[in-house]
């Protein structure tokens, strides 16, 4: 009875907008006290974060992403992509897709892409005679594509929580990440053809000029991806190099950011996000150790396995569950369910690395899910359209992405091939 009241109260508190870390903290505090364990145990678990080398990658990649977002890098990426692939049928749509994916990989998603890049490419799409509905849908969708590519922060967080190597996750994400983009690209080419969007011939001069403009940022994806895949760097070292390099390039070479005004502001801005994430991570570490102590994952499996006997059925349920969770929460909060699903999925023979890819692919799509996916709100806010309009425009993209999701979920080799 007592427990029931507490659960009810916490659900209400979540729904009326309590910071999620306070809810997770409350459950951990209650759990440990009920077992008669000193609540210092929560902080001991939190402090374990400081023993994980990858912890350092979180603020470094975040600040690098924010520096890039606040500079003129978005304009430069779009200009280059347009010069290189604008001639293709549906070329501009693919430009949007690729620019957004690169950008999201660096900034970790959660709507930053829509604000920074969406506003830039949306008018260009309209000027090129793409329909408003298609353009709106594309920009909203592109806001979360790219989460599977390095140096995406959600991948790092999943790895921290599932205790899986970040480098393997980065390797595993490449093919599924490309598949998600490919299906949208195909759909865009088809739509571009239908709308008779004008095509521009390839202009070598323009391409060269765009390339020169972005010359200092071009090496970034290469040394991060190359460095990690080539085994020269760990993810944390890549983060250190990226943060320092981006800072020097944006402040002293491009001079997009002013040292005394922009730099402190952007630093603070980015660390507010890191602080918010750290609060959740800290409390979630405590909760996880409590749940494992109580053998909750084990009990959960015993309970589920009575109903769910096949792996396929479990994966279907997992997809639905993650889409709902991801729609309601941000990726950084949804990470809390990882310690629960990893052991259960293991019992069904699902590799934790593959599970990570499934997890992130689902959350990527969940951002778009009506009625309350985060990207819908961001887009509605940014482009001054109603949520209904945005949701209707995004729906065909969701359907296409779900096809890709099914492929990624049911063919584990796509994720695991590069890892083994």
């Amino acid at each position, binding site marked *: 009875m007592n427990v029931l009241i507490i659960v009810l109260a916490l659900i209400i508190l979540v729904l009326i*907008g309590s910071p999620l870390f306070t809810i997770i903290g409350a459950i951990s505090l209650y759990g440990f006290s009920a077992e008669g364990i000193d609540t210092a145990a929560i902080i001991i678990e939190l402090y374990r*974060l400081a023993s994980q080398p990858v912890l350092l990658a979180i603020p*470094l990649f975040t600040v690098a992403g924010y520096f890039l977002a606040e500079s003129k890098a978005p304009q430069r990426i779009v200009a280059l992509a347009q010069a290189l692939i604008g001639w293709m049928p549906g070329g501009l749509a693919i430009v949007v897709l690729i620019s957004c994916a690169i950008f999201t990989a660096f900034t970790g998603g959660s709507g930053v892409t829509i604000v920074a890049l969406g506003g830039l490419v949306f008018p260009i799409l309209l000027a090129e005679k793409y329909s408003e509905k298609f353009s709106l849908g594309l920009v909203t969708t592109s806001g979360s594509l790219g989460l599977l590519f390095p140096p995406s922060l959600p991948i790092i967080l999943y790895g921290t929580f599932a205790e899986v190597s970040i480098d393997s996750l980065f390797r595993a994400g490449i093919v599924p990440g490309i598949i998600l983009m490919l299906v949208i690209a195909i759909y865009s080419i088809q739509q571009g053809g239908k709308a008779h969007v004008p095509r521009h011939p390839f202009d070598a001069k323009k391409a060269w000029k765009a390339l020169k403009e972005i010359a200092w940022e071009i090496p970034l994806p290469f040394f991060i991806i190359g460095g990690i895949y080539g085994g*020269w760097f760990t993810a944390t070292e890549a983060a250190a190099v990226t943060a320092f390099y981006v*800072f020097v390039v944006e402040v002293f070479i491009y001079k997009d950011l002013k040292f005394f005004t922009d730099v402190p502001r952007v630093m603070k801005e980015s660390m507010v996000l*890191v*602080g918010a994430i750290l609060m959740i991570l800290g409390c979630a570490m405590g909760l996880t150790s409590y749940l494992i102590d109580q053998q909750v994952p084990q009990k959960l499996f015993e309970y589920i396995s009575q109903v769910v006997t096949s792996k396929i059925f479990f994966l279907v349920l997992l997809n639905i569950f993650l889409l709902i969770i991801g729609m309601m*929460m941000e990726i950084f909060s949804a990470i809390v369910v990882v310690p629960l699903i990893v052991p259960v999925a293991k019992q069904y023979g699902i590799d934790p690395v593959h599970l990570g890819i499934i997890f992130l692919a689902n959350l990527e799509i969940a951002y778009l899910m009506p009625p309350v996916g985060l990207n819908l709100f961001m887009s509605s806010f940014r482009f001054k359209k109603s949520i209904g309009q945005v949701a209707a425009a995004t729906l065909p993209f969701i359907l296409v992405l779900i096809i890709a999701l099914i492929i990624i979920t049911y063919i584990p080799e796509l994720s695991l091939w590069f890892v083994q």
Partner: protein
Amino acid sequence: MKPLLFIDRWFEKISGWLLILFLGIMIVMSFGQVVLRNFFDTSIEWGDVFLRHLVLWVGYFGAVIATGERRHLKIEFLTKLVPLKVRKIFFIITNLFAAFICYLLMQASISFVQLEIESESTLILDLPLWYFIGIIPVGYAIISFRFAIHSLGWISEIPKGDWEIEEVQHL
């Protein structure tokens, strides 16, 4: 109320300054470590441990600022649907709750830090461990204080009937 709000604002300012300082050190030093390791086959021995603890500090300062700017991660779709008046009541309730939980977390971290002080454990350069983890209780204390002050600030406005202040729009 005024002196409390004054203290509150200073917590935010100081956190901001220290955050920028520490993050700056973090960016430069972590890059330096990579350079030393890859080109000179050496590195500052205590560097990596120190940097990871710096993340804790920067994180808590960031969280202190997040508290004031209401940027902690939360589920927002329901609060966006209700009228401003209700939103403000939600805000007061959730902030008081958050202040209470952070107070408990502060107590928990005090007893954790006490354990480490008693065991006289050291981290790097023979410095006591608690120098580095002291930020945990301090962080929760400031965050708890800020949550409490902000909800009290709004409660004190109820008699004025001043519901429509601009700030509410950003909740």
